[in-house]
């Protein structure tokens, strides 16, 4: 895509060159998903050791902000990505469901670590064997705790899912519990 110097100087445009036009065409969905995936506002729901690793992910070395997820909001009304990091116990489960229900669509859930994904190595009387028992999950990140690179990989996978508009099939079927 070369521009001859004189046409740049004279201001004449090659009307095939869209980079210098004042408008470009795209699909509405593409723009929408571009915006959604590049500005995820995470709700860092860190309960246990994965919470500390999440702090590292958001820290200076493995910067989560460069993926657009810089604005961490602790209110579910203001965030769209529920990053569950850490073990969720049976006591915490109703609280988690409440937080999930308070979030506004479109919302995504990322289960970080094996404890959130499946109960981890706690096959115990007070540990929820995976948050997918109570809320629908988009991406599971295994690891105990997952290395920050793995978390970033998970975020990128979520971004790809948003781009492809490919939510998990169980999400449509999820019914909130009667309260």
């Amino acid at each position: 895509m070369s521009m001859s110097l004189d046409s740049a100087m004279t201001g004449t445009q090659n009307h095939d060159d869209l980079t210098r036009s004042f408008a470009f065409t795209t699909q509405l969905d593409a723009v929408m998903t571009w915006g959604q995936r590049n500005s995820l506002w995470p709700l860092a729901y860190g309960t246990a050791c994965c919470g500390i690793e999440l702090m590292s992910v958001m820290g200076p070395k493995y910067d989560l902000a460069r993926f657009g997820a810089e604005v961490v909001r602790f209110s579910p009304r203001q965030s769209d990505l529920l990053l569950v990091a850490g073990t969720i116990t049976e006591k915490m489960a109703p609280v988690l469901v409440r937080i999930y229900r308070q979030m506004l669509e479109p919302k995504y859930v990322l289960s970080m670590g094996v404890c959130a994904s499946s109960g981890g190595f706690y096959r115990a009387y007070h540990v929820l064997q995976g948050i997918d028992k109570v809320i629908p999950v988009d991406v599971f990140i295994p690891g105990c705790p997952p290395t920050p690179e793995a978390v970033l990989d998970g975020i990128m996978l979520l971004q790809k899912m948003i781009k492809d508009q490919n939510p998990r099939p169980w999400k449509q079927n999820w019914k909130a519990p009667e309260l």
Partner: protein
Amino acid sequence: MKHLISFDELKSDFVKNQSLQVEKYIFIDAFGDQAIEVPKDDIVVLMQFLFEVKQFDFLIDICGVDYPDRALRFDVVYHLLNSITGQRLRIKSQVAENEGVESVIQVWKGADWFEREAFDMFGIKFHGHPNLRKILTHHEFVGHPLRKDYEASRQQSCATSLPIHFDNEPGSPGDVLNPKLLPLNIGPSHPAMHGTLRVMAELDGETIVRANCEIGYLHRCFEKMAETHPYQQVIPYTDRLNYCSAPMNNIGYCKAVERLLEVEIPPKAQAIRIILAELSRIADHIVAVGTGGVDLGALSAFFHLFVFREKIYDIFEKLCGARLTVSLTRIGGIGNEPPEGWYQLILDFCDSMDKEIDEISRLMLDNKIFVKRTMGVTPIKPQEAVAWGYTGPLLRATGMAHDIRKLKPYYGYDQLDFKIPVGTSGDIYDRYLVRIEEMRESVKIVRQICKNIPEGDYTIRDKSIVLPEKKDVYGNIEGLMNHFMLIIKGIKPPQGEVYDATEAANGELGYYLVSDGSAAPYRLKVRPPCFAIYQSFPSIVKGSMIADAIAAVASMNIIAGELDR
């Protein structure tokens, strides 16, 4: 020379007291621990006597043990510590299933939550306790999980959360709210609540009239998992207790098991364990100071400090491959030989950490806003702190120089040159001051050791305890068989019990280990330092403002993994 009281002395003193049935007492001296089994009616009088006369000022732990084949099914176990001589004493008492035992809350305020936990886990009733209800399991939970007939994987789901409630006080029951005051619920999903703590308060304007904290949102059943896994397999579970300083939990646990097995680890392993402990202490204090600042709005300190936490992660990763939950120690030593250049890496880290501590000192402790928000806020006197069971930086901030590394040194701490920083008033500012100074002292310790690492092996080579080297496991049949048998059949320590404590970042981390000779622990009770500290929260924040309550929770450095286990 510290005068340690012998059993004969105690016995003669007991006999002078008419109400004690000394002829029924059983005195046990095994594995270096002193224990007395007493009938349950004597408990309160005995505790009063030991506290006032014999100066056992610390109630370290209360727990239960289940022996389902006995008529008197439960053992209620009290651990006491004399902070001047460092002598420990264990008092045990047998209780039947439907009976109860008198609560010792009248002697020590800090018995509060320990007794509630024993009730929750076993169903042991403590008469005279104002608030005997569940603390760790959820309110819809039926049964007592640490009893031997409760299956470990039998989950029970919970569909609701409890409404705002408070502790019962004389004249005002806990579940009745005062209609004139504003009830406020903070957490458990809250930025300032360090994960999973829930604070409920009744406010008059901004001042707190009543406060209560609810815990158990991270109760991961560590003690039940310990009972169902062999000794080596418990080590990864201990990692997840205080996850900010994982090696310290590993060290505490392995130290207890080694005492039960009566083995002494080689000097090189001891030195490396001290390095790991002090580095984890620095890591833990980084989190405490960093997130404490974040809760008050000071974000820069967090970002500065976490760079150094990454450096510590690098050091751990070079040793074992994992960053956070490391499982670095094994029973008998440490997991593997440190690689080349590891000590030099640590020495470089020490140099940079020194400079960083100076910078953080200036950034936070000299900051006017920080000073105004933390100085004079929720101070606590040393006697009250001891009554609650405070240990660690919070106790030292009140002015009491109590540190297990100096009181009962282990692993060669007595040969090292380091000081114990002590505060004056016990307020939040002093706590951060103590933590930052402790980081400095830890760096000093690590430097001293890295310069004189002893020669030798990094683990003992007892074939019935320690796995053989990989070259033997894959190389010859004897190594393979040894490995197989240790993994299948496990390590079998002798029958007995032991209580071992180390100075962790938050205070005294103790492990009470009961073994019945089989491959898994019969009972493993963890004495978490922040459990005793957090139970004082409702009474400490009474009368201060809500913002101070946030600062107080942050300064206590409550790690939920340790608190709820």
